[in-house]
């Protein structure tokens, strides 16, 4: 039994059912029933058209369930009005599933969970493990999300930007365990890019590939954070980098710039530098200017201040930093870094220790504490 084939077909079969009018939860139940049937029947009697077989069986299961449930009569009426089930279209149309899972009525975390479940075909247990929550909690979250989107029909094109935001969130979770969410996000974005001709989809895919390429070099064996400038560039995945750069260049050539392409361009410039010293910081600042224009995000301006500090010297970076709200996350960490570059080690050590207090995660907190300790140790000698 080909589990990979089944997993890859599941989203498109689900989409066919939902498009024909089945509500999301019922459609998923029906598809699960059809998969069970496939596992039972296929070994002895393999179908010629696996997807067509699954659609037919799943649709029959859905109708059975709908008819046998008197309380679902309303939905049955809905089904009656739909055109009769025809042959399953040959094109992969899971796209609608992406849009459904990124529906604006869902909270970001629900949208992420639903995408992993419906589009990614992950089990509830796998998603729960990836998010470090109990399986029962995740099951509730997913069924609540399904209820929220049940009844949503695909008569209007969805918003690609929302789908990309959800995939970006999946990537950023990035836990590695049974399920590597960063790898899963890349897989899903790759599928999306094959279906949607949109430069920002390509931009996001390029961005993910370029960041993923540096992954093994970002942490030391003991789990501590290795800053970009100290990473062993020999450990970067050059194949991923080459692919990311190529996808990005094709996207940029279309002259429809968006924030993901701009972020990917910055990542590409880092990836392209043979050493940290040879990084083209001037061009990185220019991309941050574009990014700030596109997003108006204070976090982007904070990153821009770092880049200015590298391109024009730490004083220039500190001047940029002074224009920003000092309550921004990582503001103090950036101030510490720029002060160190400027030679004021006492201030830098104090700021690193302060930044460690409000670090958003463990790796960063330890990293900042070590930075403070390093400077304090140097001053004492």
């Amino acid at each position, binding site marked *: 039994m080909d589990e990979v084939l089944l997993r890859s077909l599941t989203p498109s079969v689900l989409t066919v059912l939902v498009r024909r009018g089945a509500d999301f939860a019922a459609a998923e139940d029906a598809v699960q029933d059809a998969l069970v049937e496939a596992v039972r029947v296929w070994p002895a009697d393999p179908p010629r058209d696996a997807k067509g077989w699954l659609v037919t069986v799943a649709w029959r299961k859905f109708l059975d369930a709908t008819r046998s449930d008197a309380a679902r009569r309303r939905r049955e009426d809905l089904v009656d009005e739909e055109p009769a089930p025809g042959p399953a279209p040959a094109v992969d149309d899971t796209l609608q599933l992406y849009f459904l899972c990124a529906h604006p009525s869902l909270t970001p975390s629900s949208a992420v969970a639903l995408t992993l479940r419906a589009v990614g075909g992950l089990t509830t247990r796998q998603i729960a493990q990836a998010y470090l929550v109990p399986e029962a909690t995740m099951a509730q979250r997913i069924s609540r999300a399904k209820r929220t989107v049940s009844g949503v029909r695909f008569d209007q094109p969805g918003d690609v930007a929302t789908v990309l935001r959800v995939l970006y969130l999946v*990537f950023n979770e990035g836990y590695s365990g049974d399920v590597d969410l960063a790898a899963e996000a890349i897989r899903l974005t790759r599928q999306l890019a094959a279906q949607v001709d949109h430069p920002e989809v390509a931009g996001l895919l390029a961005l993910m590939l370029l960041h993923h390429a540096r992954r093994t070099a970002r942490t030391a064996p003991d789990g501590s954070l290795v800053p970009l400038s100290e990473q062993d560039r020999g450990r970067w995945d050059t194949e991923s980098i080459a692919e990311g750069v190529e996808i990005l260049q094709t996207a940029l050539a279309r002259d429809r710039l968006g924030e993901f392409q701009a972020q990917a361009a910055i990542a590409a410039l880092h990836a392209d530098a043979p050493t940290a010293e040879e990084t083209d910081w001037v061009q990185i600042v220019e991309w941050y200017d574009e990014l700030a224009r596109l997003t108006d995000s204070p976090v982007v301006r904070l990153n821009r201040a770092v880049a200015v500090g590298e391109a024009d010297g730490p004083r220039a970076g500190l001047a940029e930093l002074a224009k920003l709200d000092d309550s921004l996350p990582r503001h103090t960490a950036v101030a510490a870094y720029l002060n160190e570059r400027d030679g004021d080690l006492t201030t830098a050590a104090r700021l*690193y220790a302060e930044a460690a207090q409000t670090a958003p995660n463990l790796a960063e907190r330890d990293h900042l504490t070590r930075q403070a*300790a390093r400077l*304090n140790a140097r001053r004492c000698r």
Partner: protein
Amino acid sequence: MAKYLLLKHYRGAPAAVNDVPMDQWTPEEISAHVQYMNDFAARLEKTGEFVDGQALAPEGKWVRYDGEGRPPVTDGPFAETKDVIAGWMVIDVDSYERALELAGELSAAPGAGGKPIHEWLELRPFLTASPTITECTFH
């Protein structure tokens, strides 16, 4: 088997014997400290005595039910830990506001006469592994 929660406290307790703030240690001393804790957890995993270990952010807030939809938030009554910690619960929510709301709700658990006890709860964010993209310039 009985479960115990070992709370690492950074403040509020009597001063430790070797009371040097962490940023005054050498980076090697910090690594050794972290390694010791990791090894400790790994050893207890092997003996089957490990349940859960998490790091908490320092910015704890005290939350108490004070009537519908208005949980007051303070930097704390700074009670002794044994006065406060009768148990703990971990929640996973979309926002800080939602966490506050739930803490307020939990604080309204009924006590004497079936009335809310208006218990103070300490709300502390977990620290987790670092994300990947959002901090582009550093990593």
